[in-house]
């Protein structure tokens, strides 16, 4: 066992401070009584009430949630299909290319994705707005859900599907009655991940959005250009809480499922 030295402790503190100090400051100042963002004037939750009373914020929030719900659902469906092909299809010509292309948007600079989508929508003469943001979000969050679901499918015991078919279930029935329920936790975490990705995207949404489809991050960004208000702090705090809840829930789901699966496997081997 390594000793927990002074050096380790300070490295850890510094690292975490670097990562989280700005967010912590933001959260603290969201409870500031004073109108001045950088001067502490006592504890208050009045900015939170102000956020909920602000129609502009609320409209943007509603757009963001709808975009998130629709794009996460579409991305999860497409991601599941891509993952099935990647894991199950065996070898086919162009498989490496296909898997590379599914994962490429993960590392593609957001500006590029946003710009190319913008060009596409313009050249197709597509009215930019609610649906273009959704399409854009589906394209990048689909790869994340494909990654999450394919990592589960790799460990999926194929004899379960064979058993279902052997008992008279068609391929379709097998997929919906056996495969989907068993990989459901990873599907849910893929959905949560896609939802949070959509929730906090600014760059791609800015490129692909149109009038009447301003998302919350876009709204915040435009407000900040006019000056940071404690209202923005409060709103950002709410977003931070939402996003981190989503991410933590997704990882917990995957992890808990993994632990349970290992325990079941151990029981299966030891049982007898």
């Amino acid at each position, binding site marked *: 066992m390594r000793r927990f030295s002074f050096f380790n402790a300070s490295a850890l503190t510094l690292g975490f401070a670097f990562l989280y100090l700005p967010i912590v400051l933001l959260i603290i100042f969201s409870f500031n009584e004073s109108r001045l963002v950088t001067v502490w004037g006592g504890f208050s939750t009045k900015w939170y009430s102000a956020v909920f009373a602000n129609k502009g914020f609320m409209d943007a929030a509603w757009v963001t949630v709808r975009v998130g719900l629709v794009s996460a659902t579409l991305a999860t469906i497409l991601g599941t299909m891509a993952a099935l092909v990647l894991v199950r299809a065996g070898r086919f010509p162009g498989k490496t290319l296909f898997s590379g292309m599914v994962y490429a948007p993960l590392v593609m600079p957001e500006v590029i994705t946003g710009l190319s989508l913008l060009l596409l929508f313009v050249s197709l003469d597509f009215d930019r707005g609610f649906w273009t943001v959704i399409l854009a979000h589906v394209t990048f969050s689909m790869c994340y859900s494909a990654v999450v679901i394919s990592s589960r499918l790799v460990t999926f*015991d194929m004899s379960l599907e064979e058993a*279902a*078919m*052997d*008992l*008279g279930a068609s391929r379709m029935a097998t997929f919906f009655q056996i495969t989907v329920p068993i990989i459901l936790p990873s599907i849910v975490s893929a959905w949560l991940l896609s939802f949070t990705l959509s929730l906090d995207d600014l760059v791609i949404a800015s490129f692909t959005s149109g009038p009447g489809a301003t998302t919350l991050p876009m709204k915040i960004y435009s407000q900040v250009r006019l000056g940071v208000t404690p209202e923005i702090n409060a709103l950002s705090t709410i977003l931070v809480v939402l996003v981190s809840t989503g991410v933590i829930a997704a990882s917990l789901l995957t992890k808990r499922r993994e632990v349970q699966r290992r*325990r079941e496997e151990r029981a299966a081997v*030891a*049982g007898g």
Partner: protein
Amino acid sequence: MNGSPNSGSGCNFAPWSDPKEKPLIRFDAVTKKFGDFVAIDNLNLKIYEREFFALLGPSGCGKTTLMRMLAGFEQPTMGSIMMRQQHLTDIPPHRRPVNMMFQSYALFPHMSVEQNIAFGLKQEKRPKAEIKDRVEEMIALVQLQAFAKRKPHQLSGGQRQRVALARSLAKKPKLLLLDEPLGALDRKLREQTQFELMTIQEKLGTTFVIVTHDQEEAMTVASRIALMDQGKLVQVSTPREIYETPNSRYVADFLGDVNIIGGHILGPDDKEDDIVQLAWHEDYAPLRIRLPQPVSFPEKGTERWVAVRPEKVRITKEYPTDTHNILKGKVLDIAYTGNISTYHVETEDGQIIKSQEANLEHLHRRAITWDDEVYVHWRAGGCVLLER
């Protein structure tokens, strides 16, 4: 070790020897290749109704491939598989009247015991009441009444095995395939479960095909055993035949323990004309082997092998009388396994002969011990002559 002559489905059950009997399953010149690898090589086989048929062989011999072709998960590269008048090859797995019990059991983890058993019936959209009755019946058959609502991970290995069996029998298949069904169980439970399987098979009259690499298991449960090697059937016989009259050194050696001595045919015995003499060493008397009646005598000088099971070789200090084959040697090793002792005797020219004696009384002092000069001997009817 001895195969019970009554195993499978009763004493007089032998449809394979009745030419009027039509087989349930027929493999005609079936070949299965995976790339360049030949898993099944031009195989012909008939399996009859109500049989408990065992596919036995070392891993990689093709027995699992054969079973997966019956289930429909693999298609033969050449040849056909018939069930009665129907080409099985044309039917997808979910339409075949064949069910399979998987080695891993493949129980659906998100369903209870009841739901697992009901799964196949629900696919057929049978009436609810009928499904419920059938599930109850199956749960009673495998005695899991107290566990009906549990999920697979709340069951022991033995209980899971029963659920898997009940699930695969629920649809009353014409043919049940069992892929190493007892492989995950410990020895005691496995023996007990073998008898339960036989009881259930007799009760339902379903045809069972079991894949196993455990020869004792095959001998215990099966009405007939097919021993496979490298994609071919080496011998298909009842447990007793395959043990007592193997058709090759491979079979003799795979099933149980055996002494094999090679030699050349000398000719018939002077006194008994159904005994053949085999010259195996210039300094020793030829070995004498009784042949089964209908077999014609092999020509003088042909190479043959004699196989004799250790339990048929007696060991004495005195020179024996009233026997056919006697070899003199020295005790090299004694393996004591409680019920029996196995003596390894080395003859003067270095041949090792194994002899087994049942330990009829408590062993305080052995009559025969290490380095003793002994005679190992067996009767002409206790050994078989092998062509290959």
